[in-house]
């Protein structure tokens, strides 16, 4: 029960943080490099024993609400679905099956900083790369796009680490 409540809070909290805080940040000319999308954190941090079906439904609703706010109907949704589906692939490409307990949330405190950075780094980078590619819908100027995805990933990771230290209580 408490777990469900926490999940609901994370769900809406992440949307609010994404839309009213991160999207509102202004770095002048370099703004496009520092506008990470962190809503995928909700999907990525889910316990390992969550079924893929549930994960996909969460991803669809989360992406859909974010898309309505950002006027990019279907863009976040499609990529969030892909990330949700490929989550086990990403996770087990950096660690073996037995390393991680099945009934804990995947945060920086439970899986350790190295694995956190690797796992979340890979998934969020793929997210951004696909997002910018689908948004632009061409391979024009790919190097700039790649750099944009990379810097956005790094800034997103920094923000997520910060967020977890603030919002999650350590035991």
């Amino acid at each position, binding site marked *: 029960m408490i777990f469900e409540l926490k999940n609901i809070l994370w769900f809406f909290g992440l949307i609010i943080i994404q839309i*009213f805080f991160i999207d509102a940040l202004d770095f002048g000319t370099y703004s496009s490099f520092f506008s990470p999308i962190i809503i995928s954190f909700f999907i990525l941090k889910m316990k390992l024993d969550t079924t893929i079906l549930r994960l996909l439904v969460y991803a669809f609703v989360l992406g859909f609400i974010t898309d*309505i*706010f*950002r006027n990019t*109907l*279907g863009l976040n*949704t499609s990529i969030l679905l892909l990330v949700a*589906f490929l989550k086990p692939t990403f996770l087990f490409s950096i660690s073996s099956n037995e390393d991680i307990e099945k009934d804990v949330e995947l945060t920086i405190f439970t899986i350790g900083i190295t694995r956190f950075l690797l796992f979340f780094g890979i998934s969020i980078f793929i997210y951004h790369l696909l997002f910018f590619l689908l948004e632009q819908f061409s391979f024009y100027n790919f190097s700039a796009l790649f750099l944009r995805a990379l810097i956005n990933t790094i800034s997103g990771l920094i923000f997520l680490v910060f967020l977890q230290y603030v919002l999650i209580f350590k035991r």
Partner: protein
Amino acid sequence: MKNIIFLIQKYRNFLFFLSLEFISLFLLFSSRNSYHHYNYLTSSNSISASLYSAQNNMTSYFLLKETNDILMKENADLKNQVYNKDIIVGRKYLKFEDTIYKKNFLFKEVKVINSKFKYYENYLIINSGSNSGIKEKMGLIGSKGVLGVVKNVSKNFSTIRPLINPNFGLKVLHKKTNSWGDLFWIPEENNFRNIFVKNIPIYTDVSEKDYFITSGAEGIFPSGITIGKVLTIKKNIEDQTLDIKLEIEEDFSNSKIGFIVMNNIKEELNQHLQIK
């Protein structure tokens, strides 16, 4: 039959993923082509727009000082107009007795409550909608120059397609030589401070810091409103045209006030535009 059911059961995760992905991609591509079908699924719907307006209520306090400066400047300009009986449009003074011009356009002041300027398809939201008489394809000008064109209208809010959107198109004039050009905002090469003007003939005498203004050809904006000034000029030998980069006069990261341009004789003009 049994085998098919077994197959579906085995791959149900993947099939579910595929169907959801298909729905989202369908939404993505159909929303790009025919935007009007999804009026309720955009940020100018009442729920998201009212949340944005609450955010604007909070954050606008931090910008009060700057907004105040702009307002004071604008006030001074308006006083100038009243006393001199001139109508100021961009950087150009027009005579008060210019009756066609006066009847032609009406201005309604609006507040920009949300501005997205660092993405691919950027947009603005303003706090007036169809209740205030705003319709699609009306122009929006800021305190310094052109902001964009109304794209989507709900009862109390509207979405604006700004200059800094790849789908925005407008005919512009070079102020000094009256040459016609077309505006292009290319997201991979431009940021929210600059924009390209293309299709200007190569022999045109354009120099840096020249102004480009609206032509008034489509009837969306009055002619003579500033768009920006020239940053760099590049010759395109193949097409015998100039590629000009403009610095946009209006700063999209902090534009807060604007004026909707209502053209009273737009329908009449449209008839002529169709005849050609």
